[in-house]
């Protein structure tokens, strides 16, 4: 063990000396790794960013909320079975709430009805088209909600577009020809790929929604769960309650869907993952080219120093020692490249974040570890073949080599 440490130390020393004495060569070889690590790391930040974007979008839904809807949140092949289902009515919420109250130890807390449609919003000369308008009872105090007051809470981006230089509070915006007073602006949430984000939504009280907007709106009922670890039980309970609301006989199939954030996630995750895999694979190719450079230069190094290898063997270096020495040389090069690449990638990330704040990238400590690990692995893998060759040189032949 001690000997191994001494040999390791010696190998590091030689590796550094070797790099110093072949500056240009080492720099050029490391450049390949630098480019590879930059590419992979930037892709990593993008994958991270995408993932966080997805999660942000997803958090609008809430991980402790069940959604009762007409359509399930997944791809269905038999859409005709769902098309003719009865619409979900906002009144179900009240019925459900009464049932929840009467159920002892219910896993459900409260049901909230929501309706939604897309409308344009105007204020002065500014207008935003196709805004997701949500009618709900949350967000508003009870009187506003029940009474159907014409008030609205607007998302950050909507506020930004309508009120570029004013405070939106207490101004009146025009939705569907009807004036609504802005009572709140949601803080910025970030958006990704146009997936739902509070930034581009507005919310009005359900009463007002029903009063002013056509019945073409989609409605659903959101039910908050007491304990999100018992989501499955809650889901069963809610399904049972909904069957009672709809008055279904035991043999009849559900004519509604109970959804959760997770279901949505599981349809989006494969998309997210294939972006990550494809992206990392393609950028990984550039790292692969860098690795070939390392392998090549290590082969050259072994060839150049054949006689030295012979001498070392004559002095008692074992195969393992020689193997270790060249592995460390290739790894040191890769680590150097990795460090520089990572630093450059960090600077680039920083620049991109400053220049395009909405671009989904995210630099993390995990990424630093990952790229350092990748650097070391690259060094070990690309150095292995030449190091193996060196360690298996016949000392007699190596000593005679000129």
């Amino acid at each position: 063990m001690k000997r191994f440490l001494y040999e390791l130390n010696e190998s590091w020393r030689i590796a550094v000396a070797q790099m110093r004495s072949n500056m240009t060569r080492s720099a050029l070889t490391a450049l390949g790794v630098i480019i590879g690590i930059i590419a992979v790391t930037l892709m990593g930040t993008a994958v991270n960013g995408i993932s966080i974007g997805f999660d942000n979008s997803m958090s609008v839904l809430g991980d402790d909320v069940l959604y009762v809807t007409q359509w399930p949140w997944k791809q269905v092949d038999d859409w005709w079975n769902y098309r003719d289902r009865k619409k979900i009515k906002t009144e179900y919420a009240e019925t459900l709430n009464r049932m929840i109250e009467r159920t002892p130890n219910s896993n459900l807390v409260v049901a909230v009805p929501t309706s939604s449609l897309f409308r344009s919003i105007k204020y002065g000369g500014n207008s935003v088209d196709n805004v997701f308008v949500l009618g709900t009872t949350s967000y508003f105090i009870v009187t506003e909600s029940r009474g159907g007051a014409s008030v609205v809470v607007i998302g950050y981006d909507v506020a930004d577009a309508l009120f570029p230089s004013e405070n939106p509070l207490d101004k009146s915006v025009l939705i569907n020809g009807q004036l609504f007073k802005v009572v709140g602006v949601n803080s910025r949430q970030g958006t990704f790929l146009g997936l739902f984000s509070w930034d581009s939504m507005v919310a009005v009280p359900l009463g007002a929604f029903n009063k002013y907007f056509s019945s073409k709106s989609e409605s659903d009922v959101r039910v908050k769960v007491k304990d999100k670890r018992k989501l499955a039980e809650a889901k069963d309970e809610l399904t049972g309650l909904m069957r009672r609301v709809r008055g279904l006989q035991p043999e009849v199939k559900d004519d509604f869907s109970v959804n959760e954030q997770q279901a949505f996630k599981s349809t989006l995750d494969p998309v997210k993952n294939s972006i990550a895999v494809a992206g990392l694979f393609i950028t990984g190719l550039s790292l692969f080219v860098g690795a070939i450079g390392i392998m090549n230069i290590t082969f050259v190094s072994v060839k150049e120093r054949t006689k030295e290898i012979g001498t070392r063997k004559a002095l008692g270096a074992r195969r393992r020692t020689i193997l270790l020495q060249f592995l460390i040389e290739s790894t040191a090069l890769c680590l150097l490249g990795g460090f520089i690449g990572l630093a450059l990638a960090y600077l680039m990330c920083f620049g991109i974040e400053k220049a395009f704040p909405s671009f989904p990238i995210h630099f993390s400590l995990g990424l630093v570890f990952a790229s350092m690990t990748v650097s070391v692995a690259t060094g070990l893998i690309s150095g292995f073949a030449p190091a193996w060759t060196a360690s298996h040189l016949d000392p007699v032949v190596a000593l005679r080599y000129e």
Partner: protein
Amino acid sequence: MNHNSTRPVGPLVIDIENITKDYVMGEEIVRALRGVSLQIHSNEYIAIMGPSGSGKSTLMNMLGCLDTPTSGRYEFNGRNVAEMDDDELAAIRNREIGFVFQTFNLLPRSTSLRNVELPLIYAGIDPETREEMAVRVLDEVGLGDRMNHKPNELSGGQRQRVAVARALVNNPSIILADEPTGNLDSKTGEEIMALFEDLYQRGNTIILVTHERDIAAHARRTVHLRDGLIETDHPGFIPEVDLVALDRA
């Protein structure tokens, strides 16, 4: 040649019996050694001579445990070397054999001290002891003031002294010198040979492989090889005339 006293020999170190070595060169099998038997005791000073192609280098590689024989028995300090694997041979080379090469074979970017420490690193000796031992042998070969010089800052003779110090540092059973003066002018060569004489007088075992008679003349025993066989094995140096006479006999 004016020898100092010949020292009494110690126990058997190298015991070779009837070893052969065949090389495959394309279609042909080259029989480099055809059955060599040799015994070397500790505290001997022996020269191995022979023209090129005589098997001299092959025998040296065997003695130095750089290679194993095709057949025959080779015991080094009672241990069977002929059947050792690469790493066991490396361990024997590290502990038992000190190599001195014609071309010095120093690591160009390392100081004398680091060069001499190298075998000790492979032996797993801790840094403090390592430096202590290296400094001591460098002093012994007269390079106490050149420890932090790199090979390109040293003369040929000094480089070979560093190599000798490196050979000595692990306190080996034998010192195996392959044409140690081959790359030196004759004056420097004589200085190195004086160093070997000194080492011999201090109790080291020296095997000298050379084709130069006046270098071999320093040894106390001379082995002549020809065509893969030992032709003569005599104590003392045998002048050329005697050899011719022996050939006739």
